[in-house]
């Protein structure tokens, strides 16, 4: 685990407040760690939801925080705690993706799954609607879309994390966007 910052970092609480709780949590204070959990759970939960889908999102979110507690001793404050936690979450979610992918045997090629859902609007909120559409993307395309367009990682970083070529990352991102384009309602589209 390193402290490399993603391109976009927007911890949900100011850094100094985190630093106090991190220092306390590192000395074993679970109440301080609970405050860190409450400050960051929304971002971790959102990431897990978009990266892994709704099926195991609660368990994965808990996994992230349990892992963070276990690894807290290695946090040296070289990056914001939110950045460190986010990177830890991405790493865990990607490793889970490999494991769960083998179990679930979900096919990346099943573009038709999204096509069938195109136009179905399940919530009145644009963000929620996009989340639903993201959840229906094939695994590979979805994770690259989330990492690049939602979380702000660069293709080079994604390539390193996933062990793929930069060109593959770009191709999957374009694929994801084009699939999502089919899901956008006409009113949400540009140029119409």
């Amino acid at each position: 685990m390193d402290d490399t910052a993603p391109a976009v970092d927007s911890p949900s609480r100011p850094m100094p407040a985190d630093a106090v709780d991190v220092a306390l949590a590192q000395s074993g204070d679970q109440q301080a760690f609970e405050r860190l959990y409450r400050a960051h759970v929304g971002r971790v939960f959102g990431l897990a939801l978009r990266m892994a889908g709704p099926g195991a999102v609660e368990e994965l979110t808990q996994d992230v925080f349990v892992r963070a507690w276990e690894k807290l001793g290695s946090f040296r404050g070289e990056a914001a705690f939110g950045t460190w936690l986010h990177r830890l979450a991405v790493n865990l979610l990607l490793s889970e993706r490999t494991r769960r992918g083998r179990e679930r045997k979900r096919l990346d090629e099943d573009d038709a799954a999204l096509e069938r859902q195109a136009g179905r609007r399940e919530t009145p909120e644009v963000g929620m609607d996009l989340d639903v559409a993201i959840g229906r993307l094939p695994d590979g395309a979805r994770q690259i879309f989330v990492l690049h367009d939602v979380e702000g990682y660069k293709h080079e970083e994604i390539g390193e994390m996933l062990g793929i070529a930069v060109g593959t990352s770009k191709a999957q991102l374009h694929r994801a966007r084009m699939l999502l384009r089919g899901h956008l309602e006409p009113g949400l589209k540009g140029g119409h």
Partner: protein
Amino acid sequence: MNDRDVWTARLSEYVDGDLPADERVALERHLPECAECRDTIADLRRIQSLASTLGTREPQRDLWPGIQRRIGEAERAPGVLPFRRRLAFTVPQLAAAAVLMMIVGAGTATLALRERGTPAPGGAPVAVGSPTVQPAAFAGTTSYDAAIADLERVLADHGDDLDSATVRVLRQSLETIDRAILQARAALESDPSDPYLNAHLADTMRRKLNLMRRAATMVAAS
């Protein structure tokens, strides 16, 4: 393959600014004559924009109890020695903590006297600590600082009576908390009215005292 087919797969790169300059120029020459590519670019930009606004999502139920349970199980697992347990006290360390607790008691008494306007022992005027931000939830900060400074002096004077390893462990523990206090104070300099930071600072200072109090209790029970 027509021009549109050639460019379709490259439109995301164009939107992201990743297209090499010569290809970008060529695509921009193509766009005025291709409404479909223009529409696709507009949609890709819209998707990109929407994605960047996706915010946090809160779980529908509180996940903390499950996390807390799992943390507790991990800490109790046989053979597991999490980093936090390095701070656990041995008997001599607890003895040192008891000494510190007595010192804290003296400091707290001094603090109480000062807050009532009574001169400190010796009758000399009390030199308060640095005029840092006063956390609303812990109004005695400057007196607290002075008391801690007194304790530090006593510890420096009597530290030789204690096992050096014991003192070192205790100092490390206190330094961790002191670091947290300093960070909270620094944050409060820029936002003195932040209730969260005020509460944290007060809580952290209490924890410093509680650390010693717990150690003393354990000594008494052993």
